[in-house]
C-alpha cells in the first residue's frame, strides 16, 4: 500500500522532485516550486524526504528503468546529489541496533535463527582472533588510526583538492588524517603507536575540551618527542560538533617524527594562560 503524506502521495512527490532535478519542469512550474521550497515549510520537508526516498530507492535498485536512467543522468551531472547518493548507499548496508535484533528474534523460529547466527559469529570471532594473533607476531606493532577528514563543524572554507571517493580509492595518497584526542585518554603507546601512512601531507589534530570548559579562545602547545621542539598554536576558537567542544588545527605530516607527543591546552586571553588539559599520543610515521 502506498504511504500517504498530508498533501499527496509519496510517489507523486518523488516524481515531482525527480522532474525538478532533471530540469523537466517548465520555467513557470520551476519558479512556483522553488517559491514553495523557500516559503512553505511542509512542502520543503516533503520534497527533502522525496529526495531521500529517490536516492534510497535508486541505491536499492528499486526504481523503474525509466526513473533509474533519469536518476543516473542527474547524478552524473550534479556532484551535490552524488554526495547525497553516497550516504544513501551507505545507509543501505545499515544493520538494526542490537535491541531491535532481539525484537526480530522474538519468535521461536527467530530465536533459533538468532542462536545459529550467534554460534556462527562466535566461530568467526575465534578464527579471526587466531589469524590476528598469528599475523600480529609477524609484523611491527603499529596501529592504523583513521583515514578520513574531520568532524563537520571543524570544516573550514576553501575549494576541495580532489573528490573524497577518489582519495578513499587510492591508498597511499591520503591528504589528511584526523586524530581525535579525548580528555584523559592517551592515544597509542610505545609498542602500539598511531601509524601515519606514507605520503600523508597533513595531520589534523582535533582536541575534545573538558565538558565544563567555558573558555572562548585557546592556545595549544605541541611538545615534540623527547622535548626536542615545541610549537605553539594560538587563537584557537572551540567549535561545536554534536555535543562536544573541539579545537582543531593541522600539522604538516612531513615534519612529524615518530615518538611520544604531548599537547597542552591553555585558556588564552589572560597574561598567564591557565592549563586546561593535557593530551598524549604516540605516533609512528609510515
Amino acid at each position, binding site marked *: 500500500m502506498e*504511504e500517504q*503524506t498530508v498533501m499527496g502521495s509519496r510517489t507523486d512527490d518523488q516524481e515531482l522532485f525527480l522532474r525538478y532535478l532533471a530540469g523537466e519542469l517548465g520555467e513557470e512550474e*520551476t*519558479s512556483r516550486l*522553488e517559491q514553495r*521550497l*523557500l*516559503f512553505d515549510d511542509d512542502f*520543503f*520537508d516533503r*520534497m527533502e*524526504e522525496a*529526495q*531521500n526516498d529517490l536516492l534510497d530507492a*535508486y541505491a536499492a535498485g528499486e526504481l523503474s528503468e525509466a526513473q533509474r536512467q533519469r536518476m*543516473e543522468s542527474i547524478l*552524473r551531472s*550534479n*556532484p*551535490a*546529489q*552524488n*554526495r*547525497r*547518493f*553516497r*550516504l544513501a*548507499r*551507505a*545507509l543501505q*548496508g*545499515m*544493520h*538494526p*541496533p542490537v535491541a*531491535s535484533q532481539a525484537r526480530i528474534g522474538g519468535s521461536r523460529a527467530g530465536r533459533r535463527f538468532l542462536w545459529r547466527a550467534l554460534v556462527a559469529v562466535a566461530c568467526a570471532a575465534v578464527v579471526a582472533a587466531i589469524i590476528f594473533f598469528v599475523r600480529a607476531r609477524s609484523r611491527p606493532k603499529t596501529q592504523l588510526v583513521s583515514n*578520513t*577528514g*574531520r*568532524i*563537520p563543524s571543524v*570544516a573550514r572554507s*576553501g*575549494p*576541495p*583538492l*580532489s*573528490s*573524497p*571517493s*577518489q582519495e*578513499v580509492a587510492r591508498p597511499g595518497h591520503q*591528504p589528511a588524517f*584526523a586524530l581525535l584526542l579525548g580528555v584523559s585518554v592517551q592515544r597509542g603507546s610505545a609498542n602500539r603507536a598511531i601509524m601515519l601512512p606514507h605520503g600523508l601531507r*597533513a595531520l589534523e589534530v582535533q582536541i575534545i575540551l573538558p565538558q565544563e570548559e567555558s573558555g572562548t579562545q585557546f592556545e595549544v602547545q605541541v611538545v615534540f618527542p623527547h622535548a626536542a621542539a615545541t610549537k605553539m598554536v594560538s587563537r584557537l576558537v572551540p567549535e561545536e*560538533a*554534536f*555535543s562536544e567542544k573541539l579545537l582543531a588545527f*593541522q600539522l*604538516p605530516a612531513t615534519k612529524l617524527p615518530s615518538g611520544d607527543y604531548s599537547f597542552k591546552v591553555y585558556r588564552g586571553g589572560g597574561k598567564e594562560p591557565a592549563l586546561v588539559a593535557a593530551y598524549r599520543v604516540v605516533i609512528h610515521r609510515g
Partner: protein
Amino acid sequence: MKTGRRDLDKASFEALLGALHADRNEAGAVYERLRQRVVRFFTLHGISFPDDLADQAIDRLARRLKEGEVVRNLPAYLAGIARLILREERSKAQRQEENLGRAVPAQAPSSQPEPAWDTIEHCLQLLPPGSRDLIQQYYSAAGRGRSENRSRMSKELGISLNALRNRALRIRRELQKCAEGQSGEQPPQDD
C-alpha cells in the same frame, strides 16, 4: 541593528528592512527567518557553503531595492535570485571539476567507489544513542519490509508515521553533514 556583513551597505539594508515590514523590529525578525529559509534552500541542493550564498542572494535583493526597483512579489523575486545563484554556483563547480581533470565520471554513479564505511560508522558514533538506534532501525529493512518495519517502529515509539519520518529526516541531515565533513570536503593546509 547591524547587517552583520561588510559587503552590504547600510542604505541597501535599510531598503530591505523597509520592504520586509513597516515595523523595524518585526522586519529584523522577518529578515532572520528569510535568511534561514534561503540557507535551507541551498542546503537542499547540496551547496557546500549555503550561508554564503544565502547572504549573496539577500544582498542582491537589497541592492535592487535600494536602486529603486519595484518588487511586487518579494518571495517570487527572491526565489528568482536564489535560482540564478544556484545555476552560477553549479557552473562554477563544474568548471572547477573540469580544471581538476575529474569532471563528470564516465561510469554510472552506482559503479563509483563506495564511501568509507568508517566515515559513516564514525558519524553514527557521534549521534546520541537514541538517534543512532532510531536511524539504524529505520534503514534496516528494504523493499516491502521497509513500510512494515517503519509502521512497527512508529507503534513501538507511540508516534505517528509522519513524526517518525521527521525524526529520521533530522538525523539523516546530521549524518549527511557529518559525512561530508569527514570525507575531506576541505583541503588540508600545509604550512
